[in-house]
């Protein structure tokens, strides 16, 4: 048991901080619902941060730390699937990587765009294809997703079959989504804490009222434990740990999203404050891989048969 960050891990996280600094804050009144940055994405690819899993002295825990860190940014980055799942399938698959479950391909697909790799995981194994514009439904206006999202119109007849265990991909996928959720939970909590510490009503900061303090403290407990469950799941590579981590992350997301908007009051209903960037991403992640119930069933199967 050794839970301290290694020097290498600290260094990687420090590098990401420097690289992401220009993307860490936003001018108010300039926040769309889904926010991306091609420049940030290119910088991450070039610096190799999405490839740390295969580096022997870094590995999956560092990859989870990278994903968690990047999820804290206001800009959505397709890092989780690329950094934590792609190395298991084919490290050269073109990005962005879109993971979909066989039989559930009709839902919103994060980062889906022409040229993306779609990986279909299920009973038929692990198969992929590069998507073209003809396979993507016409863009919908006024969606409520804080990720860039599109819908597949179907699957191609021919796909590349990957010689990899679907269960193993599912495991890595769960950890990847949980790592992303951990970062979103951390960022959403931090943004809420800042707001309620500054905002004064009745002559004192909102954060001095115990009704809010205790709920935020409970949110800290849950957010902290999601972080640790994610790192453990990444470290052990155990399928039960992976299911527990995503179950706990999805439970946490369900708990905090409305609380945080509630705590921001009127500001929590606007696009002026960036809170929604994290909470509305979290909302979509609660639906990932079938939602809490599916993770619960997977965990129960792994733990007790």
């Amino acid at each position, binding site marked *: 048991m050794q*839970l301290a960050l290694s020097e290498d891990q600290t260094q990687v996280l420090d590098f990401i901080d420097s690289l992401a600094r220009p993307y860490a804050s936003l001018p108010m009144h300039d926040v769309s619902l889904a926010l991306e940055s091609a420049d940030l994405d290119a910088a991450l690819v070039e610096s190799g941060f999405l490839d740390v899993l295969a580096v022997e002295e870094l590995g999956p825990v560092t990859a989870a730390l990278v994903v968690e860190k990047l999820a804290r940014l206001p800009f959505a980055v397709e890092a989780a699937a690329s950094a934590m799942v792609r190395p298991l399938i084919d490290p050269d698959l073109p990005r962005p990587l879109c993971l979909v479950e066989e039989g559930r391909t009709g839902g919103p697909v994060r980062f889906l765009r022409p040229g993306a790799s779609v990986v279909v995981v299920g009973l038929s194994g692990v198969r992929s294809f590069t998507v073209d514009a003809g396979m993507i439904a016409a863009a919908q206006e006024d969606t409520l997703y804080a990720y860039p999202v599109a819908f597949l119109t179907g699957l191609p007849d021919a796909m590349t079959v990957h010689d990899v265990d679907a269960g193993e991909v599912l495991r890595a996928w769960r950890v990847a989504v949980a790592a992303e959720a951990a970062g979103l939970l951390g960022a959403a909590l931090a943004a809420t*804490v800042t707001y*309620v510490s500054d905002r004064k009503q009745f002559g*004192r900061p909102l954060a*001095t009222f115990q009704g809010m303090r205790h709920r935020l403290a409970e949110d800290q407990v849950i957010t*902290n434990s999601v972080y640790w469950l994610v790192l453990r799941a990444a470290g052990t590579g155990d399928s039960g740990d992976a299911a527990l981590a995503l179950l706990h992350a999805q439970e946490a997301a369900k708990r905090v999203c409305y609380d945080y908007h509630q705590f921001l009051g009127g500001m929590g209903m606007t696009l002026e404050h960036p809170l929604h960037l994290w909470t509305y991403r979290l909302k979509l992640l609660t639906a990932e891989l079938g939602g809490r119930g599916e993770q619960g069933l997977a*965990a129960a199967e792994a733990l007790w048969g």
Partner: protein
Amino acid sequence: MQFEWTPEQDAFRHKIRDFLHTNLPDDWEKFSEHGPASPALTAFAREFCVKLAEAGILFPHWPVEMGGEGLGPWEQQILAEEMWIAGEPRGGQYMNVNWIGPTLQKYGTEEQKARYLEPITRGQSLWCQGFSEPDAGSDLAALRTRADLRNGNYVINGQKIWTSYAGLADTCFLLTRTSDDRKKGITIILVPMDTPGITVRQIPSLIGEGDIHEVFFDDVTVPETARFGDEGQAWEIVAYSLRNERLGIPRFTLARAALDRAVAMLQGEGRFSREYVRIEAARCAALCEAAGTANYAVVQKRVDGLAIGAESSSARYATVMAERAVCEFVIEFLPQALAGASPYLKMHHQRGIVAGVAAGSAEIQLNIIASDVLELPREPR
């Protein structure tokens, strides 16, 4: 980072398990339904702790200069986990090795160390914690039990309440007021429980018989040398002690073991196939493991010699959440467990009620997290 135990740590855990297997009686699970402070378990612990001492696993985590093996915080954690999962056969003596011994070593006079450490290392002493009072529970600094220095003696008058182990303890780690300064007026006195003027009354409890008590002090007189630390130093010493105590009981391990036991019973009855039961069990397991990893993150800080701060409150609250979830799971799906169908689950349920109350209430932990982890501006006083 490494989330697996080392082979040495695994071997240490197995050594403890083997010891428990050999030294716990066949009817132990039923026996452990007696409260941790009950006469039966206290008497059992006096023999059991002697055997632990002989086997070198009563206080192996203590530094070598204290007679331990200097094994460190992970081994202390493993020891505590295995004992608590087994129903804590050390009874109240777990406190001795977790925090009383180390606190005596850090703050005690040579006379106090000589008098109190040796019986602890032989597995022959039992302490109680004279902290809470009728009007000073979570607001501990409101305590009023007075200790007045007269002619080289402290004369103690007042009342403590909800005091665990007081019925059979030989010494009380007593918080007293020596001046009106709210926190700096509190002083620790080590009081032999057979001192004239002490009256102990048991309070019937949900935890089991003999667990909590009222303790009255009427002109209890002890020499000035019974003072522990300086006058007014109690708050500092207690903060040091509680940092150990808050991590001291790894309740999440018993919660997880109880959950596994409950699932096995449901499986045996063919009732673990329904999806909602499986999902709820998994949710409980996630909370147990979440609490475990949060606790381990704090242990790591101890291993690295870093100061432990408010994050121990976060780990502790995570443990409370796990305890509650497992208790709720058991009562919802195996209500017969509380009527003797499973002594182990009953034992867990009895002890689970303590999780959010003892060693600083859950609400106090939330206050600490709000102020010191989240750094929210403090409430006006």
